[in-house]
């Protein structure tokens, strides 16, 4: 087996294990930390497919941004030592069945489908290519989604502030 394959399976195992831990951990802060590992694993895979920029974004935004945000909010809303109550057993069983069924079905489809890979054309996701594509308004240019996303981010930011803002005493809304 090639080293790259070994690397991949290793990362994959890490990812899945930490994902599982993230959704089953009884302490909420740990769940966030396990999520961080799973996200890190993803970044590793991005490195493996040579999407370095994406990997960097993944690390910065997800691991650096969202997880930190989550941890802050955990700190704001819960005690760190507080154990979460276990979900009731029926729910677990039902959800497991659904999860397994879904996974089995998807895997069944994936394994039975014949993919026709295309040869690598040698285009590398280097910074200049990415930048050019993002700012390009011609064919295969992404300037419109880019702008839309930027507005969305702005809107989300405003929205988040408005929603989370503490009401002034005496005001009704």
């Amino acid at each position: 087996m090639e080293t790259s394959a070994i690397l991949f399976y290793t990362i994959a195992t890490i990812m899945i294990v930490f994902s599982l831990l993230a959704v089953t951990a009884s302490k909420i802060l740990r769940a966030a930390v396990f999520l961080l590992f799973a996200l890190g694993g993803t970044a590793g895979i991005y490195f493996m497919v040579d999407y370095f920029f994406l990997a960097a974004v993944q690390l910065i935004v997800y691991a650096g941004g969202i997880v930190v945000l989550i941890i802050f909010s955990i700190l704001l809303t819960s005690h760190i030592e507080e154990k979460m109550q276990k979900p009731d057993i029926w729910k677990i069983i039902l959800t497991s069945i659904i999860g397994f069924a879904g996974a089995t079905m998807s895997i069944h489809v994936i394994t039975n489908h014949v993919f026709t890979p295309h040869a690598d054309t040698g285009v590398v996701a280097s910074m200049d290519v990415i930048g050019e594509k993002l700012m390009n308004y011609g064919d295969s240019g992404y300037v419109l989604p880019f702008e839309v996303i930027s507005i969305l981010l702005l809107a989300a930011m405003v929205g988040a502030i408005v929603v989370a803002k503490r009401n002034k005493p005496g005001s009704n809304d």
Partner: protein
Amino acid sequence: MIEQVPLNHALIVTTMMFFIGVYGFLTRKNLITMLISIELMLNAVNLNFVFFDKYLYPGTLEGHFFSLFIIAIAAAEAAVAIAIFINLYRNIRSIDVEEVDKMKY
């Protein structure tokens, strides 16, 4: 570098990750852990895009950009979600999903 791994295997990994996310979303009671589960699912989807891009349509970088945008949206979503959670916590002193049923009927 990744070429030695068959696409099927890569996809099986993401599928498992996705359904783990689903499991978490359905069982967790705490809203923040539910958000974590959602992030897992998004992540799995991102990976899928990247794999398809890399294996099936190399060179176009479509999956790459899609993932990029999804990460951006995920960030926005997480920000809004957490703002809501905090507001909610401030109002009902809880972020348990089962207590958030004011909008029923």
